């Protein structure tokens, strides 16, 4: 399978001009006007291109370049607006911007696929809606911008805005998440506008293949990355099968909240959680993760009821022993965790849509698409990290980057063909299967 042509390149260094950040919405106004005019032209050109492909099964070169530039320009302006990049974007959609996609050459396209392009794009459009909103970044003009606030990219930009104003830098993990969301949106645009015939790929490890990984987080994923087989029967009845787990999780949650209150007082006093609290809460967070993975089809087997480590093919590694924790961070934990949970909440929408898409795909093929599985694994991991932070299992803030952290310094951007196309089982980066046990 050929690699997806519109992979993302991120050369932004994270530095932000405070003034440009503060006035970002106003600075984008000229682009909005230009974007609106360009969109009108794109509407007619796309229809013409559609007819050309239906006749020749090959796009016309001129309209292809025009539409490709439009896709690129949309990405540039969105990246600037949502603080994924700080350089004022050019008006021509030329390559070389801080957050960009690779060039896409005209290629043969199937007539049938082109004819039903917008119907086929519905699942991808739904996923995009959770990432960048119905406006699709700048697509809906000012309204699109407002709608985008309740999405992944909207939440990232909101918190980036405050941090950038304070520090003059954007957190790289938030930038990566925004870049991922906008990059996927660009893939969807390219697909809908017939720039490429290849279906958008949600896999964060593929989309951000050239981006440096963040430092390792004490709460991380492990498991068998190739475990994509799904039992059609348990997929069909996945929700009813999960209900006993949901009831148990709900009951356990009550006990967990009581223990968390005790744990908070003790940690505030001693600077370290009691071991039994740590173990109890670790089990709960891991169990929550297992149930989420089962329910969302990120993993196949029916999970156990006790959150035991090593019992599930998609597992969560948590600190084995209570760590020393900063008392200030402990004291204000419930406030500090709010941004993480807001981002986690927007990722839950992504998770739900991805799970529904996976449900249909697994029923038909008996296998989960690797890209969707990795996306769901990221959403579940981020939620688990947020829970671990709330329950004082670690005082490391959740890693918002869709890429799993790594211990050794990451190699400089290596443009390896990590992603090998939909249905490929080679996505091992996100879930190191044979890392040493920490618990």
């Amino acid at each position, binding site marked *: 399978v050929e690699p997806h042509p519109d992979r993302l390149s991120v050369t932004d260094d994270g530095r932000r001009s405070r003034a440009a950040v503060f006035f970002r919405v106003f600075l984008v106004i000229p682009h909005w006007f230009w974007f609106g005019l360009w969109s009108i032209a794109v509407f007619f050109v796309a229809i013409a291109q559609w007819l050309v492909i239906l006749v020749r099964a090959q796009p016309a070169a001129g309209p292809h370049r025009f539409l490709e530039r439009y896709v690129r320009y949309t990405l540039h302006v969105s990246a600037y607006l949502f603080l994924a990049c700080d350089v004022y974007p050019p008006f021509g959609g030329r390559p070389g911007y801080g957050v960009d996609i690779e060039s896409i050459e005209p290629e043969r396209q199937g007539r049938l696929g082109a004819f039903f392009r917008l119907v086929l794009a519905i699942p991808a459009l739904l996923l995009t809606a959770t990432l960048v909103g119905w406006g699709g970044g700048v697509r809906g003009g000012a309204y699109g911008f407002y709608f985008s606030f309740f999405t992944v990219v909207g939440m990232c930009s909101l918190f980036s805005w405050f941090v950038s104003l304070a520090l003059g830098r954007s957190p790289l993990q938030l930038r990566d998440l925004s870049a991922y969301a906008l990059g996927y949106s660009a893939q969807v645009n390219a697909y809908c506008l017939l720039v490429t015939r290849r279906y958008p790929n949600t896999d964060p490890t593929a989309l951000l293949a050239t981006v440096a990984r963040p430092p390792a987080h004490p709460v991380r994923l492990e498991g068998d990355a190739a475990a994509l087989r799904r039992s059609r029967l*348990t997929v069909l009845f996945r929700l*009813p099968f999960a209900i006993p787990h949901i009831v148990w999780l709900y009951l356990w949650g009550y006990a967990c909240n009581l223990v968390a209150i005790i744990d908070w007082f003790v940690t505030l006093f001693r600077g370290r959680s009691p071991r039994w609290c740590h173990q109890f809460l670790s089990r709960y967070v891991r169990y929550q993760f297992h149930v989420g993975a089962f329910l969302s089809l990120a993993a196949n087997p029916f999970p156990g009821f006790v959150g035991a480590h090593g019992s599930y093919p998609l597992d969560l590694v948590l600190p084995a022993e209570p760590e020393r924790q900063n008392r200030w961070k402990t004291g204000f934990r419930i406030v500090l965790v709010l941004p993480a949970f807001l981002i986690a909440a927007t990722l839950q929408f992504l998770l739900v849509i991805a799970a529904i898409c996976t449900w249909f795909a697994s029923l038909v093929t008996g296998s989960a698409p690797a890209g969707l599985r990795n996306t769901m694994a990221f959403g579940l991991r981020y939620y688990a990290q947020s829970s671990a932070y709330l329950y004082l299992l670690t005082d490391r803030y959740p890693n918002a980057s869709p890429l799993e952290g790594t211990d050794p310094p990451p190699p400089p951007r290596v443009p390896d063909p990590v992603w090998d196309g939909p249905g490929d089982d080679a996505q091992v980066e996100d879930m190191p299967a044979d890392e040493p046990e920490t618990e």
Partner: protein
Amino acid sequence: VTARRAAILVAVAAGWAAAAWFLWRSSLPAYRLPHLSETVLFPAKALHEAQSYGFGAQLFWLGGTLTQLVVLGIYSRYGVRWMKESAAGPVGTGMLLGMIGFALVWAAQLPFAVLSVWWDRHNGLPGSYLAATVGNWLLLGSEFVALSFALAVAMNLARVRRIGDRWWIPAAPVVVAITLLLAFVGPWLLPSHSLHAGYVTPLENTEHVHVPVRVMSGTQEPNAFATGLGPSRRVFLWKPILEPPFTRRDDRFVLAHELGHLAHNHIWKSIGWDALFTVPLAFLLALVARRRGGMGTPEAIPLVIFAYVVLSLAALPLRNVVQRHMEAEADWSALRATHDPAAGEELFRHFVVVTRDDPSPPWWDYVFLENHPTALQRIEMMRYWKENYAAAQSP
């Protein structure tokens, strides 16, 4: 050892029979119902429609039940193959196997459920395809919670070395305790509103039962039920029974019937009967489970599920006899409270017309499906009371 076992068995059987006799006792007199003909009591058209509808419904029940038995029979043989879909340890795997068994039954019975809705609608009765398919798919979740809980109790007990195959002895009281808890808590969880009618208080005074009388919306079937224990006791009337063609006199009779259930402690008695059936059922399941390594092993679960369904089906006629006996006592109680057999007769005539309830179904339908006396038997009781008690007890 054999003699000792026989003695224990006799003692247990005697205890069971004594408990059953105690629970069977009622305020019903030794009566002999007059024999009436349904062709005289009901219009030919209503009778034909009820019998025609009943025939279809019986056919679908038979088809659904046979399908269930065949599916679970095959599942008991090959179900262990799904063990590989679990990462949950023996007990969790047992739960999954139990749920898969019932999920397969649901899938196999789906055509019958859809046909039943079609048949209901064809006969002018309410029915929703969405509820029969997607709704029931979601309802499987609550069924699975109960199943998982029961299996968790039984399997965990069976895995305790000192209990082992005798798990059924502690498991039966746990199941009964849960039944008690649900019976106690359940009425508070049902959405409803109060019934304001002049006949409520006089009836409650007559039957010496003072409980809230509630109305439930959201259903298209005319019905009512009494539930709860102690402070949670309540009577629920489904909204359609308060609407035409049912009259105020009919509703008064219905309420008296439901209050009769509470006045004669039928909820407690039902739980008592549940306990009496649960103990031998659990014992037989333990015997079946031993063929596959005991209840503590997940391999036994598909066979146990099959045995459970077969034994429940076998016990159904006996349970229906018990339930019909209590319903007859509630009818009798309603007659004594209202002194209005004409209202009762009108009520049961309306039931036949509105719900297409066959007044004299075939014997096997009566044995397996009817947990109330037939409409004909109930009208016969109204006539019997009128002839023998009306003059003596009229105010």
